[in-house]
């Protein structure tokens, strides 16, 4: 067989450029330290790598635990066809968050320290433990796909035996650290701008993580249906979108109540960067929420996709507002990421897309159900075992 060179497409060319710049940025990070490769300072010690790669990365990977809970704990089986891609996204997402942390930590060689040097009073300690444990859970939830591909049924059975406690542990660990990413900012009451600082940060981070997990799942299904020419599970996605609309409504309502109780609406009258970026964030979340209440929107692949993308950007805007916009005023400095920070972040995102695509192509991620979206229930005995595990 002749070795086929991959076809050059626009997207592949862009990806290559991004990865090359990321590679050079990595060299600069190692050679010149954080000072030479970032615009971080004592006044602004957490930038894009924490704000986007970690806060958004972990949130965008929340589809994994959300769908595991829906399919295997609430036993709503019809969502099964989109469970595997969600778990793959989560597993990839968490792996990439760890990669990003290796860039951001001053001493990446000591990333394992929290495992043996404990401080239960630290939110970061809790996040570190949860992310480590949950990555292990995700590995075990994902590995059946690989085992299945190569027909190794014995370990498949072992994992199946522990699958229920494993899945429950996964949901609990996610609950803890998704909310804890918000708790990280509870300790800076006088530093974080009052439009974002709230004692409810952990709750708000948790709800928005679930919402964005659903959004990511819809986003992936949409893209993979185009990439692999599969039928779109539209009625399934539409009913998820309905859940999404309700969740987003609850989220926005809680934020409104929280702001009302803290009496911060007056801040919205000030003509400041914070006000405008806050408005952008809320608009990106509120507009799709309203639209998704309409059946016409939910049932149109294009409109549904547009809504979901808005929610994703609204979520990203929220996390970046908490991590960057909201922290600027009190820091007494202005932070704009250096090109190296952006290059590393884009490379990580690009690598995520590329790896997802390759894995989805070679492993049984999307179930075969060519035309009828209410997939055939009759699955072979062996496959049923595997399905139960993932």
């Amino acid at each position, binding site marked *: 067989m002749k070795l086929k060179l991959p076809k050059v497409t626009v997207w592949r060319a862009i990806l290559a450029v991004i990865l090359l710049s990321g590679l050079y940025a990595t060299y600069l990070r190692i050679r010149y330290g954080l000072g030479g490769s970032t615009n971080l300072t004592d006044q602004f010690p*957490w930038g894009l790598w924490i704000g986007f790669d970690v806060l958004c990365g972990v949130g965008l990977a929340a589809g994994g635990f959300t769908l595991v809970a829906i399919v295997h704990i*609430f036993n709503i089986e019809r969502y099964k066809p989109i469970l595997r891609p969600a778990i793959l996204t989560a597993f990839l997402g968490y792996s990439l968050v760890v990669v990003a942390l290796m860039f951001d930590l001053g001493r990446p060689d000591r*990333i394992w320290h929290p495992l043996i*040097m404990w401080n239960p009073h*630290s939110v*970061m300690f809790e996040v570190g433990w949860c992310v480590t444990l949950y990555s292990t859970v995700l590995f075990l939830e994902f590995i059946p796909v690989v085992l299945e591909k190569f027909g190794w049924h014995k370990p498949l059975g072992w994992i199946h035996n522990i699958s229920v406690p494993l899945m429950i542990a996964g949901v*609990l660990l996610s609950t803890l650290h998704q909310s804890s990413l918000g708790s990280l900012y509870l*300790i800076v009451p*006088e*530093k974080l701008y009052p439009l974002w600082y709230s004692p409810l940060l952990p709750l708000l981070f948790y709800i928005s993580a679930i919402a964005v997990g659903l959004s990511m799942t819809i986003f992936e299904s949409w893209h993979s249906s185009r990439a692999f020419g599969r039928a779109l599970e539209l009625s399934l996605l539409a009913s998820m979108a309905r859940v999404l609309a309700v969740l987003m409504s609850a989220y926005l309502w809680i934020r409104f109540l929280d702001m009302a109780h803290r009496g911060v609406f007056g801040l919205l009258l000030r003509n400041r960067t914070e006000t405008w970026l806050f408005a952008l964030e809320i608009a990106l979340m509120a507009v799709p929420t309203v639209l998704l209440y309409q059946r016409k929107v939910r049932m149109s692949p294009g409109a549904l996709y547009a809504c979901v993308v808005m929610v994703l950007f609204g979520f990203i805007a929220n996390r970046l507002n908490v991590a960057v916009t909201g922290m600027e005023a009190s820091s007494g400095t202005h932070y704009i990421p250096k090109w190296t920070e952006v290059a590393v972040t884009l490379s990580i995102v690009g690598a995520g897309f590329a790896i997802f695509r390759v894995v989805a192509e070679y492993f049984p991620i999307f179930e075969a159900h060519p035309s009828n979206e209410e997939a055939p229930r009759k699955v072979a005995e062996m496959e049923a075992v595997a399905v139960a595990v993932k």
Partner: protein
Amino acid sequence: MSKAILYDSTLCIGCKACEGGCAERWGLPYNDKIAAEERISAHKLTAVETHGERFSRRLCMHCAEPTCVSVCPVGALQKTSLGPVVYDAEKCMGCRYCVQACPFQVPSYEWNERLPKMRKCDMCFERQSQGKQTACAEVCPTGATKNGDRDQLLAEARQRIAEKPGQYYGKIYGVKEVGGTSVLYLSAVPFEQIGLRTSVPQEALPDLTWRVLELTPDVVSTGSVLLGGIWWITNRRGEVARKEGPRK
């Protein structure tokens, strides 16, 4: 007995002897250029600031309930019973949560090192353990920086205000700020006029996160029962449906 530093801005003449003494104690370079920097950084752990005709000194406040100690995921920062907040560079993994969280913007990071550490004043923990004065207090020519037991320094500060009420702004900074600090300030003018952060809360900050973190065991235990229960119910429903299914 917990140690502290009392800094009396009205006695400070801005000679920066404390800066020199501090640099020497840490083995850090000190020259005119560094002396001109009015900001603490990884190579300058205390700094004398000029505010018009008045001076102020910046250094780690050594809080009674330090935020940095609570946020450090590896426990590299500790509040000693002697008073100083000390740092173990061997544990630190460089997450910089202490830099982010400190209400006084004190910890500095060695941004340009390839194997960086956090740097901050440790109130000369070693010297004080041996019964010696902090380097800054020892070299201060006017007594503006005084090192001693916190209770005694607090009493002395109150006495100074009582004796010369006209010379002092009648409050002591560090008594209540973030639950109390081991560095106390006296000033002739309101504290924000000599660059101190008066917006910091009057309670210790670690409670803000602990209130949530202490719920972890509750969330895990309640969540396990709830999720396990839901699974049991829904799964049972599935089993029944499957068994009854073929009958129709």
